[in-house]
């Protein structure tokens, strides 16, 4: 049906357009990529080069940038605030990525069957993915409120201490990881589900005939065949957790001080609050470098555990 409809459309097109050889294909090719290419050149290529050059300068936005060579990069290593931001970011990223994989795979496995209310459950776990991070931070900040929040209200009722969640860096890390899991697990679950559905049913049938137990089937079929999906999700999860900003901006800032500054928060703070643009850009390059190292490491390790069938 659709095909027939399309071929009439094609013929119809032919009637509309003057007969003749197709115009210069190459010219059309450039013309159609032109909008993308212009935008990419200005907002990516030129911005990237400018970013690189500015990382060697000291600049307060108003006066002309001063060339200071490697000073910004040297400063990174002696800057306690940067080290704190880096430590916070890693402390968020590592547990978040690991727990995210475990929980989202567990949910995907639970929903990858013919149980009733599947799409209802899927919707429940997926809702936080759709929610604005700023709103998520706002809601959870209230849930974590030390005096009047429901979390501490519950803890008090069962006789546990009431932590000052967001004003202490140690508990704030835990609090932020919980929120990241709540808001991120649904996304990975969807991709794991797609991965699970791509595993041919015959594999399981054959294993069942051989008398393999449920656990064996999971370990020998499901897990290995899911490794490419897991690999992809780990990379995405690492990159996105290394870039956490909105949540700590909303949840852990008191006045102009942040109890849990992350690297991106530090970039923002240095650039747009202290107007040290050159140094802020250098911090961003450090983030790029860290992302690069993590990703490269993953690709290196991939050979050991990712199974391409």
């Amino acid at each position, binding site marked *: 049906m659709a095909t027939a409809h*399309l071929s009439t459309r*094609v013929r119809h097109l032919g009637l509309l357009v003057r007969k003749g050889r197709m115009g210069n294909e190459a010219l*059309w090719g*450039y013309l159609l990529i032109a909008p993308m290419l212009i935008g990419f050149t200005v907002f990516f290529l030129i911005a990237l080069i400018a970013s690189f050059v500015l990382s060697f300068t000291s600049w307060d936005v108003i006066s002309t940038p001063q060339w200071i060579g490697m000073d910004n990069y040297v400063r990174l290593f002696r800057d306690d605030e940067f080290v704190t931001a880096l430590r916070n970011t890693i402390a968020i990223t590592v547990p978040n990525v690991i727990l995210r994989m475990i929980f989202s795979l567990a949910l995907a496995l639970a929903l990858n069957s013919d149980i009733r209310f599947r799409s209802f459950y899927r919707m429940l776990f997926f*809702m936080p993915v759709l929610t604005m*991070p*700023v709103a998520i931070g*706002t809601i959870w900040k209230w849930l974590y409120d030390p005096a009047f929040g429901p979390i501490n209200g519950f803890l008090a009722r069962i006789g546990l201490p009431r932590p000052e969640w967001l004003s202490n860096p140690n508990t704030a890390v835990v609090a932020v990881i919980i929120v990241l899991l709540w808001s991120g697990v649904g996304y990975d679950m969807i991709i794991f589900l797609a991965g699970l559905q791509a595993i041919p049913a015959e594999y399981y049938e054959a294993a069942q005939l051989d008398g393999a137990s449920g656990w064996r089937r999971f370990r020998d079929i499901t897990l290995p065949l899911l490794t490419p999906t897991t690999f992809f999700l780990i990379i995405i999860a690492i990159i996105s957790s290394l870039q956490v900003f*909105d949540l700590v901006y909303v949840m852990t800032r008191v006045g102009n001080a942040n109890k849990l500054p992350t690297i991106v928060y530090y970039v923002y703070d240095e650039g747009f609050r202290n107007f040290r643009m050159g140094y802020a850009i250098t911090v961003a390059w450090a983030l790029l470098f860290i992302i690069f190292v993590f990703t490269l490491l993953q690709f290196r390790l991939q050979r050991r555990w990712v199974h391409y069938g």
Partner: protein
Amino acid sequence: MNTHKLRQRLGRIGLHVVLCTVGMLFLLPFVWSVSTSLKPLADLFEVTPRLIPSQVRWENYSDVFDILPFGRFYLNSVFVTAMRTVGQVFIASLAAFSFSQLRFPGRDIIFFALLTGLMVPDQVLIIPRYIIMRNLGWLDTYQGLIIPLLFSSFGTFLLRQFFLGIPKDYHEAAKLEGANPLQIYWQIYVPLARPALAAFGFLTLLWSWNEFLWALIMTNRTDMQVLSVGIALFQGQYFTNNAILLAAANLATFPLLILFLFFQRQLVQGIALSGLK
């Protein structure tokens, strides 16, 4: 045989119990947010807070609009999101069509260069982009909020993959009939790629509505701010009443949540699509 069935049924019930419990935990923050947003101020200072408000105060929602130009934030968010979504889908699909269907010198090198855009985090580019906007005089403008974010390497990559999967026959036939590439794109490839375009469009819409950092540094004037910035900046400053603050957060979230519940399938497909290479 019978015990096997019984065990299966018990397992199923157990699974429902676990899923229901976890589901409740996922839902609770939303429920609490709605309940708080309807509480009178006095309810917020209970040491053991209760879920049900002592009385329902709908005025918290209208108060949001009295305290802040919230209607304006809304319009800004809707406009900026609509423009970014349409723009991104259009620009990326045009490029994707060209990269996948037309031949021209340097095509693959240009495409590869474009892919480097996937690897560099925005934070490295955000300050130079800000400077470009400042030099153009585009701070606190819609152009400034929209234009720098119209060019998606990811979208180009995703849609190119999809276009490559469309049989060449259509293209060849249209070419023989003398249609030019723009017509082939618009009248054949766009209709055929509608599911992929919709999926990418939904992802863009979601990202754009929720976007925060760029909008934060681009806007100073209250009347140019979008919802995410409005809610973040005015916490503790104007919203001293948390019930009203959460009403604002709910107002920013729920329309999109409801919209996406209707289009759940497309969105889920889009996400699954973006995960497959």
